[in-house]
């Protein structure tokens, strides 16, 4: 189809003897909507964390847009064009909605400390441009509430939207969404589906971790299935639906539970799956 944007080769990471990600290899094309699915504890979030630099992969390589980003600092990886959301919302709770979105623009705001102290024309220009752009992104995601309010006072669904707006404001080539539909009602899920299509239409590749199979099948062009940290299937939704290995992985649930628990405890990372391992 088109150019390979992200190329993950043979990536592994383990916690206290448990291999959370075990020799994972997959790639993402430019502008593609790809879902990563798998039973609980299959290593999806760990894989995300390795790609975005929050975990150091023990082995393997991650190439993005032609350059090697394996083991780089999260900030460097983000600056190279990968944005992400978190499984449990990670917003700046004390700050306003607009400030949260401005975070995504941080590396693009053309202003230095001197401008800020002296309030130069450049300061006002850059601040106004940032504010305008933040409003546009909030419009884009359909954030309907007071944008000058502290974000922690907003309903959950709206916070989800702001987190996506913040990631989009990074102007990423690729957006990683970690269970964006969790906790949303039916209407909100429909809106999310629409939003993801509009994001893809911008030319941004979307990589989605999601448990809602209806959503996944609806939006994905391709699906990667993980189990025990390994890829077991890769293909279009229709093929995945009838893949025996996938069905086996989802049905053989007893073993999975134990595996999931082991990974969770080993990662020592609460429910989110990100420990600061730097």
């Amino acid at each position: 189809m088109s150019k390979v944007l992200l190329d993950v080769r043979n990536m592994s990471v383990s916690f206290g003897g448990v291999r959370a990600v075990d020799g994972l290899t997959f790639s993402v094309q430019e502008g593609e909507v790809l879902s990563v699915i798998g039973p609980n504890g299959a290593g999806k979030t760990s894989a995300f964390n390795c790609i975005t630099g929050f975990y150091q992969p023990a082995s393997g390589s991650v190439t993005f847009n032609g350059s090697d980003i394996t083991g780089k600092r999260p900030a460097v990886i983000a600056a190279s064009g990968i944005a992400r959301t978190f499984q449990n919302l990670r917003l700046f709770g004390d700050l306003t909605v607009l400030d949260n979105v401005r975070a995504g623009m941080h590396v693009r705001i053309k202003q230095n400390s001197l401008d800020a102290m002296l309030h130069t024309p450049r300061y006002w220009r850059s601040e106004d441009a940032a504010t305008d752009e933040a409003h546009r992104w909030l419009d884009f995601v359909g954030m309907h509430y007071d944008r000058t309010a502290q974000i922690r006072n907003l309903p959950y669904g709206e916070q989800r939207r702001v987190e996506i707006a913040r990631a989009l404001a990074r102007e990423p080539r690729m957006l990683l969404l970690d269970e964006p539909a969790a906790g949303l009602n039916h209407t909100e899920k429909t809106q999310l589906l629409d939003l993801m299509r509009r994001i893809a239409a911008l030319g941004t590749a979307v990589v989605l971790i999601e448990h809602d199979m209806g959503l996944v099948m609806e939006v994905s062009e391709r699906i990667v299935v993980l189990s025990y940290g390994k890829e077991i299937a890769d293909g279009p939704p229709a093929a995945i639906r009838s893949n025996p290995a996938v069905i086996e992985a989802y049905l053989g649930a007893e073993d999975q539970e134990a595996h999931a628990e082991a990974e969770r405890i080993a990662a020592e990372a609460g429910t989110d799956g990100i420990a600061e391992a730097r």
Partner: protein
Amino acid sequence: MNDESTPRTMEAPSAYVRAVEERAPANVAPAGSKVGTFTDRRAALAETASGLLASRWLALGLAAVTLALPYLNSSTYVIQIAIDALIFIMLAVGLNIVVGYCGLLDLGYAAFFAIGAYVSGLLSTRYGWPLLATIPVVVAAAVIGGLVIGGPTLRLRSDYLAIVTLGFGEIIRITANNLDFTGGPNGLYGIPDFGAFGLRADVALYWITAVIVIVAVLFSSRLGRGRIGRAWRFVREDEDAAEAMGIHTYKVKFAAYIAGAIFGGIAGVLFAAHQTAISPPSFNFLWSALILMAVVLGGMGSVPGVVVGALVISLLPELLRGAENWRYLVFGLLLIVVMIFRPQGLLPSRTGEPRRRGRQSQGGRP
């Protein structure tokens, strides 16, 4: 201060932004609708009070009163403690950058104050430099101090920083006490001032201090609202999320630490000029703790709050001369009580949006 990574331009809207504009859905949120804000009345009241204090008119008025003080009362005593208070304000807004904006607990802030005082004192008394000329050297020394101590520790978890900075504060004080070069325990004396300009020496120093401190307060408040200031708050709120947005958190923390060091260093120059004699006991842990107290009491991250906090902490002992032990006992209890019942301080920072200037919003909100 060096901000992280080269910012890409925002001047010309990228193809990306244009695409967004074209595709933006028509059903835009009603601007400023208050749906979903659960702020209770008390918080709203506090916000109004701090809003009033943060308003530029009140700030201008206070600056004017500060500058006019010698016309109101020029007794030696009033000028003396007013300069003390101004220097303390400068220290508090400097520490506020580190603790309030960026959320790094620095318990050895007096170290930078000491570096500033000693460097300017040494250059002026031993080598006859005019005090003004020592300021660039002081800034350089403060930056070096910040690099040495921040370099290894800012990578570590936040609570290590607290104790390492405390240790650093002690190292600086004890070293100044031990070296003959720094005058040993008696310190340095006979430090000149900036010049009298035909005025009474202390009044001239008052005005110089007032101008420097007013500018410092203004700058620290503006830094807090700009790009780097937002980055500090992002780091304070959630380091991981900030990293995920491309913010190099280590460099951002460093910038805060160095900015704080520079404020502390310049405050040290003013202190040396004011006291004419400096000695190690002036830079002990108690002093660092008092500055922290001013920041916490006033409201971490809120410049108006921190200024008020600094005024209270520096003038209260003068009003209550002679109750020292009780004072520290009350301070300690106050720290606990404030943290449990009002962690945002007396005048918390406003969460509202800054006003706009320059060209009006085009699109986005109707």
